[in-house]
């Protein structure tokens, strides 16, 4: 799956502890050139620490960071050819916008005309032409974030690190900015490494998503992979809404869920093996009771705009169902799931994985 020829950044066995708190445990991660890679996970999962180690703000307790073939593990931040966009913008409030953007360029000793051109170009890129002489704190949050991005990209870094850059913005602005970021990424043609706890942002923007929890990489793949084929209960639960149920793999392509047998497409789990299954709410078809694999009764109904959200009590479990067709509360229904919509996962084996917990 990975194209080893274009690998730009390599984390090798990175571990990091704060006090007694293990934040990263032997992390290995390769990042390709020109990739939009998102580190996704709940707070405390180690995603920000990973980013800070790459930025040079933290030193790992062990392991190496390879950047463009060179070991940069102990290189200070100001010597690294990458730039960061911080969560709270971190603009220099006592400087004008132009001074903010010129900060890095002045340090690297660029000429005045070069700097002026770059400022113009960067402001245009972030759609804030003419803001040169404004003060940083006279701007709105979204504008400040764009300036922070402009300030970072004028230095032409090979990699742009973004630490929850949209976290402080409101919903509408967040959505607009995600499209902006995709556009920027395509125009600049550089690697973006993006940290967020928002799965929607991750799914929208990324080429690759790395789902992290408790210092481990839980799953790495394209947004489609992550969404459709979560490899464990944590990923399934964290990405989108899911029905996660204990089940027994009777044999290849046959699984018993809550006493009922469902056809599936998975093989190689062995016989009569306990597993977890993930069924997305939109993959459940409500049919006439006699046509369903199991039968139940609708207990809740909420209109969500695009679809209806329903809960169906069947075989002692409340199934979450999304459907464009409405079924009244109290009605008897049958539940049907197509075999390829059932995702089978191994039960967690190690204690660490157990601790991942479904109840986030």
């Amino acid at each position: 799956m990975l194209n080893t020829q274009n690998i730009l950044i390599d984390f090798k066995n990175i571990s990091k502890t704060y006090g007694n708190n293990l934040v990263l445990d032997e992390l290995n991660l390769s990042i390709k050139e020109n990739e939009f890679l998102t580190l996704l996970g709940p707070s405390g999962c180690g995603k920000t620490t990973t980013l800070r180690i790459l930025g040079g703000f933290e030193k790992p307790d062990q392991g190496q960071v390879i950047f463009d073939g060179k070991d940069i593990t102990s290189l200070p931040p100001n010597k690294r050819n990458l730039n960061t966009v911080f969560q709270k913008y971190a603009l220099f409030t006592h400087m004008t916008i132009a001074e903010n953007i010129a900060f890095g360029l002045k340090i690297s000793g660029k000429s005045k005309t070069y700097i002026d051109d770059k400022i113009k170009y960067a402001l245009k890129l972030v759609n804030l032409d003419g803001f040169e002489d404004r003060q940083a704190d006279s701007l709105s949050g979204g504008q400040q974030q764009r300036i922070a991005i402009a300030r970072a990209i004028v230095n032409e870094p090979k990699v742009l690190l973004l630490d929850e850059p949209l976290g402080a913005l409101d919903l509408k602005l967040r959505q607009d900015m995600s499209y902006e970021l995709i556009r920027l990424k395509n125009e600049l043609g550089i690697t973006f490494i993006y940290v967020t706890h928002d799965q929607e942002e991750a799914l929208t923007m990324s080429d690759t998503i790395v789902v992290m929890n408790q210092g481990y990489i839980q799953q790495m793949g394209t947004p489609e992979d992550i969404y459709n084929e979560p490899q464990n209960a944590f990923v399934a639960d964290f990405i989108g809404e899911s029905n996660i149920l204990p089940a027994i793999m009777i044999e290849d392509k046959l699984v018993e869920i809550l006493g009922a047998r469902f056809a599936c497409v998975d093989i190689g789990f062995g016989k009569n093996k306990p597993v977890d299954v993930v069924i997305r709410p939109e993959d459940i078809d409500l049919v006439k009771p006699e046509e369903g694999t199991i039968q139940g009764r609708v207990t809740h109904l909420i209109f969500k705009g695009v679809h209806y959200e329903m809960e169906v009590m069947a075989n002692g479990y409340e199934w979450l169902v999304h459907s464009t067709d409405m079924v009244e509360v109290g009605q008897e229904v049958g539940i049907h799931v197509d075999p390829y919509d059932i995702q089978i996962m191994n039960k967690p084996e190690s204690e660490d994985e157990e601790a991942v917990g479904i109840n986030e």
Partner: protein
Amino acid sequence: MRNTFRKIYLALILILLYAPIATLIVLSFNSSKTRSKWGGFTGKWYISLFQDTSIMNALYTTLIIAFVSALVATIIGTAASIGINTMQARSRTFFMTVTNIPMLNADIVTGISLMLLFIACRFTLGFSTILLAHITFNIPYVILSVMPKLKQTNKSTYEAALDLGASPVYAFMKVVFPDILPGVLSGFLLAFTMSLDDFIITHFTKGPGVDTLSTKIYSEVRKGIKPEMYALSTLLFVSVLLLMLLINMSPKDTKTAKHKVFNKAMIFGRVIPVSMILIIVSGGIFYHVESGQSGSEQVVVYNWGEYIDPDVIDIFEEETGIHVVYEEFETNEIMYPKIQSGAIAYDVVCPSDYMIQRMIENNLLAKIDFDNVPNIANIDPDYLEQSTSFDPTNEYSVPYCFGTVGILYNKTMVSDPVDSWDILWNEKYNDNILMQDSVRDAFAVALKRNGASLNSTDVSELQKAMNDLIKEKPLVQAYVIDQVRDKMIGNEAALGVIYSGEAIYTQQENPDLEYVIPKEGSNVWIDSWVIPKNAENKENAEAFINFLCRGDIALKNFEYITYSTPNKAARELIEDESIRNSSIAFPTAEDLKDCETYRFLGDDVDSYYNELWNKVKAS
């Protein structure tokens, strides 16, 4: 109704708070020298203030110390704040508490502990120790005003600067420092104000010849209040007030972050010019003080206040090229511990008889090399003889001034002959008698009256003296010290126990007054020059003593101090015959037959005297 009440209440509080200062300011513009009379508006005290070089020197010293100590404390304090800020919450709280304690600590405790530390480290007390002390007590104020600013700053701006290629130092100077600058500035101003304001700590850590405005005011006021001091105090108050206004203004601006441009203008428009002026002023001043202390040859003199003609010092410096560092003390008891501690290497000191005895006993004095003091021949042998009571071999001291304690009486108010202490027990003069408010002087009167020694350690003699004093008490108008002089001149009392030196002065003011040494005898006191063991310029000290023993110089001092001089040559030079032959100024050996000097009686006897004296006062 309620509002009016509130306003009145507020006005009352303000009046209470500011009435004293208002009085001071008004008096500083009063052309009359007395406090009770308004003589019209004048600025002359301010003018003469700025013409007084010793005050201007104190001002210079104050400004340099305030500026340098505030600057150094700001640098150290800011660095410390940054360090503390990066600590974990727990140690941060701990260190904040630790740095706050010195601010809450009593100044006097800080002052004494610093003095003890300097002495322990063998630092010579002087300009540098004041500076060190001020830096020390200023640091917490800087931390206090920088810390909140540091907490407010977004930590990631520093990281953002590093990220953009800045070195840590560049990132700090360009990004963090501008953010905390208002805090650093107000810390500096606060430190400057605190330094300007400080008296107690300076008082304990200063050495001879160095004065800040506050210690200068203190020592001047001790001698009697001069209107210039009102002017100086007014100026000090006004400058502190201005500084406080400046401090309170700067942090407020930064809170209204929206008017950042305005705020920037404030900093550049006001604070920086003020600092610039301070730098320039202090720079010039530094040069001034430096040049003022030129010359390697010096002698450090420690003397009573107003106890030498200032011209004499000038003449000495001119003739010998030796620079005189002059320091004053108020009482023997204040002088003694300073000599004992060895913190300041005084070269020549002028204690009283009993204190000289104590210093000899405690091995604090050096023997004077009389080969360097040929003018000792001018000293009347009678007084050298008297001196043997405290300096048995005449090796440690050279008499400077002396006097007796006697009765001053008003001839128009006293009809009986005054020749005995008994008259102070005469009920005819009820409420017309003034006694000295000091334990030894009071007991000397009672002991001598009974024919006992004024250094008596005999319990029954002392008990009797106490009972006599209690008996006398209803007749006494007041127990006072300096006011005997003024009250007698003003005909407010008929009889008073007084020092002979003051008696001469009172006679000039009020010819009705007469001074008598009672026939039972009295106290004769002698103040003599001695050289402490740790003197660094012993030969200069001997040259100074020799100079003071010169007839013409001793005469100048006699005319200035008006206390009796033991110098024969000086007496012969006195033109005014009435003074030359005055029995007050120059009592005969016969007059002094039964007079004694005080001796140090030991701590136990001392406290016994005090105990009895307290009983008298309480009766």
